């Protein structure tokens, strides 16, 4: 954990987490207008993330719907001490998307070429929103501070929904190395983005 000493803090765009936490608490009490606001706040990144992992448009929509409804259903379980509402939602979205593609039937069309192509063009087809653009620029700049192996590991695991074993196979790298590259890469990204 010595890495943390070298942490460099930088200005960052606030993803409106406090708003999210407040909305979640209202949603937990059955407040439908609050849920609609929460939907507007989170559906963009949830959809973008799920689309990258699941790929098939119809299935992606199903998963996004599942995730948003689950946020409604389990809002009472959210507590701000455990992290931002946005991260709560993205963690759920990532897990659900990954579950979907790892269930056997979807596995066939996710070949190596697709996984690799995704790394080269991580930010196409995105919403033309200012906050998203700022976020993208900063994330892109920080991704450049990673080594190639760190960056490819992180992107294949997160946007590709791959297990670290699959990442190891795709990159022809031993599993122990992949584990540490994933961790080192995310830590470097954390420090560059100034995530507390």
């Amino acid at each position, binding site marked *: 954990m010595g890495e943390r000493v070298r942490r460099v803090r930088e200005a960052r765009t606030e993803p409106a987490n406090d708003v999210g936490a407040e909305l979640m608490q209202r949603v937990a009490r059955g407040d439908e207008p609050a849920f609609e606001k929460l*939907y507007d706040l989170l559906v963009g990144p949830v959809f973008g993330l799920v689309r990258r992992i699941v790929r098939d448009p119809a299935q992606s929509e199903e998963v996004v719907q599942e995730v*948003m409804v689950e946020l409604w259903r389990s809002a009472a379980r959210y507590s701000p001490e455990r992290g931002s509402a946005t991260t709560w939602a993205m963690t759920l979205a990532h897990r659900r998307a990954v579950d979907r593609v790892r269930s056997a039937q979807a596995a066939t069309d996710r070949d190596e070429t697709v996984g690799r192509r995704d790394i080269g063009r991580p930010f196409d087809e995105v919403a033309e929103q200012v906050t998203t653009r700022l976020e993208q620029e900063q994330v892109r700049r920080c991704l450049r501070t990673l080594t190639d192996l760190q960056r490819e590991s992180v992107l294949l695991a997160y946007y590709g929904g791959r297990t670290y074993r699959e990442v190891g196979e795709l990159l022809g790298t031993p599993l122990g190395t992949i584990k540490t590259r994933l961790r080192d890469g995310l830590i470097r990204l954390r420090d560059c983005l100034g995530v507390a």
Partner: protein
Amino acid sequence: MTTADIHALTGAYAVDAVPGAERAAFERHLSECESCAQEVRELRETATRLALAAAEDPPPALKARVLDQIKTVRQESPSATVTPLRHRDRRAIALRLTSVAAAVLLAAAVALGVLVVRQNDELDQTRARAAEMSEILRAGDAQVLTVDKGKDGRMTVAMSRSENRMLLLTDDLPNPPEGKDLQVWTGHGGTMVSAGFLTPDNGDAVLEISGFGDADAIGVTLEPDGGSDSPTLPAVMEVPLPA
């Protein structure tokens, strides 16, 4: 796996890249290793930034579908107390574990005590259940839920997803009328699967459920003698299960 190896899994775990059994083992480690737990929280916040950067506008029709659907989805009630036995502060874990374990074991003792007195030959089974309970509580992801329905009784559920085990305890549950049975169900995205029967003795009963998989709810219903293929509503008791 050596200790040094397991700490290195924070990154892979934060992005759901650790599959199955290894994930369960790491989750047990997380409940005991505060530095890993803290790192996982930070790396998840970090991964969230990758999601924000990937934002895409969904088809507008999706919103109407979601808003429609939530009108038919019951929310988890904040009154069902969920006690995750995992916390930022290690001391807090110990304290919570002790008090929760004490409460649950007390409930178990109440339920099991009756069995001990009435059916001495079931003592071994009782011991096995006490052991079962403490095993569940030792799991890194152990959680305890309680539902209090006042004069209609109380239900306590101790569960571990990584162990895929659960113990359901009731007390002060009104006896089922003549010719009726109390059947337990687990809910799986709206599909109800029978998990067995409660045979209350003075309102107290205990049921061990293993292999509940992705269950998102548990409930008890009153069914005709011998049970039913699907639950008769309304349920006597029901509670959503935490993920």
